């Protein structure tokens, strides 16, 4: 696993999200009103809605397609709904955001 710099905290509005494009698909990076940062795959467990486009409240996001509420910490659907999205480790160091990417063998060969 390796940390990759993706940008700075101010690139994301509070209570908002931005995307990062990776070879394995889009990752949504969220910033809460309290400057906590989370990354999860940009793919709702219900029908694949883009979570990065939802409304962020506390440490959760409401999917824009059918209003499932997804925990940013665990990627799991909250309330009565069931399902979960993959979470990606993030760290913030002096306002720079890093996400952890697994070094995967297929990409290795491609490089």
């Amino acid at each position, binding site marked *: 696993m390796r940390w990759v710099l993706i940008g700075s905290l101010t690139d994301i509005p*509070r209570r908002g999200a931005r995307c990062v494009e990776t070879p394995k698909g889009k990752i949504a990076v969220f910033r809460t009103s309290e400057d906590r940062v989370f990354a999860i795959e940009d793919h709702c467990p219900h029908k694949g809605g883009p979570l990065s486009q939802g409304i962020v409240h506390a440490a959760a996001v409401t999917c824009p397609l059918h209003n499932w509420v997804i925990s940013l910490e665990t990627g799991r659907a909250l309330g009565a709904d069931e399902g979960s999205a993959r979470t990606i480790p993030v760290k913030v160091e002096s306002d720079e955001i890093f996400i952890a990417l697994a070094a995967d063998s297929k990409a290795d060969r*491609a490089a």
Partner: protein
Amino acid sequence: MAEKLVIIGNGMAPGRMLEHLLESVPGRYAVTIFNAEPRVNYDRIMLSPVLSGEKNFEQIIIHGDGWYIKNAITLYKGHKIVAIDRDAKTVTSDHGVVEPYDKLVIATGSVPFILPVPGNNLAGVLSYRDLDDVNAMLLAAQSRTKAVVIGGGLLGLEAAAGLEAQGMDVTVLHLMPTLMERQLDPAAGYLLQRAIEDRGIKVICKANTKAIIGHKKVEGVELADGRIIPATLVVMAAGIKPNAGLAKEAGLAANRGILVDAGMRTSDPAIFAVGECAEVGGHVYGLVAPLYEMARVAAAHLADAKSTAAFVHNDTPTKLKVTGIELFSLGDFADGDDRHEIVLRDASAGVYKRIILKDNRIIGTVLYGETADGAWFNDLKKKQVDITDMRDTLIFGQAYQGGTPLDPMAAVAALPDDAEICGCNGVCKGKIVGAIQEKGLTSLDDVRAHTKASASCGSCTGLVEQLMSLTLGASYNPAAVQPMCGCTILGHDDVRRLIKAKELKNIYAVMQELEWTTSCGCAKCRPALNYYLVCDWPGEYADDYQSRFINERVHANIQKNGTYSVVPRMWGGVTSAKELRAIADVVDKFNIPTVKVTGGQRIDMLGVKKEDLPAVWADLGKAGFVSGHAYAKGLRTVKTCVGTDWCRFGTQNSTGLGIRIEKFMWGSWTPAKVKMAVSGCPRNCAEATCKDVGVICVDSGYEIHFAGAAGLDIKGTEVLGLVKTENEALEVIVALVQMYREQARYLERIYKWAKRVTIDEIRRQVFHNLEKRKGYYDRFVYSQRFAQVDPWSERVSGLHKHEFKPMATIGLAQAAE
């Protein structure tokens, strides 16, 4: 012979270290201190009371000259150490004194962070760190002119309060959206800002300093948005940096601060570091509690080489030392779903308390307005006490274990007597309460009959009922209102009335004053509140994009596969060869898979990728198109037929009227979408009789219809009335929509609102009562000044750039490195 201990810096950390050392091993060391500041050890924390005039310097001295003499310590005042020679084991001061050491302690503290902007070295630009800064500020304050403080953290606010107390006109510039955002959540930040502003200090958040202007002396501060704030004094309080330069030059390991182990020893075993300049376990510190802990540990190791004393990290509570502002923040206060929060808001007392729990243990606390229990919460947190048994009463504090639950009517109780409750009939709280008491009223109908309150549109019914409960006590039982969402007990109507009555002008104000039970709302209440504020305070409230649904945030409709559809505005459904060509070009250029004619006489381009949106708009914009707002809770389309222009049955210029209405009303936000149509004769080719608002032209004028539906529900329109001229038709339609904007609940279509308020009441207000009609019309016209901004051109110009492009793209090679 005593070993030689040399200390660089004479701040609070080494002062405390010496006290420990003198107590445990008196006489063990011959101590020499070099201090760049030409004075003894004083309580730096108390500089703020010195600035505000509540204390003088003598009162904040920790170790007076006598103390150094008594303990045989040599203090070089005003000597700055410029070099450490680790081989020779000596230090050299800027006055040329060379002093050998056996053990060396570096305690150089921090240096203020000076913004790297032009003009930062002009006379009149100060930092806030030591007594010299305070004296310089006091001198500048004698002029009683304008001061700007850059930085809305602890230091900046204390400086601002002190300067204000000295008679200056102070403005605080803060880069972030809320004050002290590192220590406070936005809710408490809002309360703090209000309290600071109440003292007459101006606060500008999201203020990005571009330059400090002036010739020789400072004359003002220029912001990135071009604003200039005049000032004769500028205080930079934008943060501090550990002062580790000297240690780095001497080759000691350093990161942000000088790296030390848990015993405070640097990478050279003869050298220790304590205070703000030291970095231990990945942390640097800026509050004295942990620095005193460093002092204790370092003293233990200096006294006994085999000591096992070790520094452990502990959260330190933050308080603001501004008289009259009570604030306390501790630990981790971010929320998350493995955490639970308990929130208490008492709007009338200006109190906000929030405790964050994880596994039934406190991990963080924010208190505002009432901080007496801070110490108790800190204690519970430190000891990791399981609070399950006192969970229900925990937030009331130690003294109130078993206290009474919150009063749900506190918000209404706190309203002043002249607060307007019923907007339609202009009835204030005092009048309603008076009537209930004097006339012995006991039912809602009685109150309506006597005062007219809630007798018109009915949106204030909830509030009137609360007033009745308040006045009559338990003998009155109102019908339950459906709360807006899980974050509040108030219904939509109550919230709307209270936003007006209490003049609440931002989301944090609403949540605080109406005692929301969550710290930042949810996806149900935030878009509703944002709409209410946009509607009620045009020009004053700044639209909160993060509280809007995605369609309104990107000005396009999200489709089921995450792509978007784009619909340009075609006024009245009329287009031209030039427009069609431009659309065709865009479709080709961006490979847009589907183009379709909509039910509202528009052209829809479906399947546009989000990253392409700005470029698509740019091209459409060049051809003269603006956004069709096909995504908006706002005016969507005005369908028309060809009327007298072409049709043999036409009675009026229906196309022209439709275009005129659309050009007048586009851009306005409404509680739910609004679709309109204008037909040139009763044959009704534009299907105006199933729209939110419709016009049927007849020989004698214009018949205005409204409250139709053709979606999940189907409903023919109601007739509002017949008017003779196009101008009058426009005025009535605008007044109708404005009444709807001001009164309906978020997401409530016109037909549902009309059913609740009754057709007659609406007709009375916007058709028969000319004065009311004019009032609604004027308010709409005013709010359009701020609403008719084409969102596309705004975005093309670069607003919120990362919204559309990924903030980063990680390629294959990079991912595999």
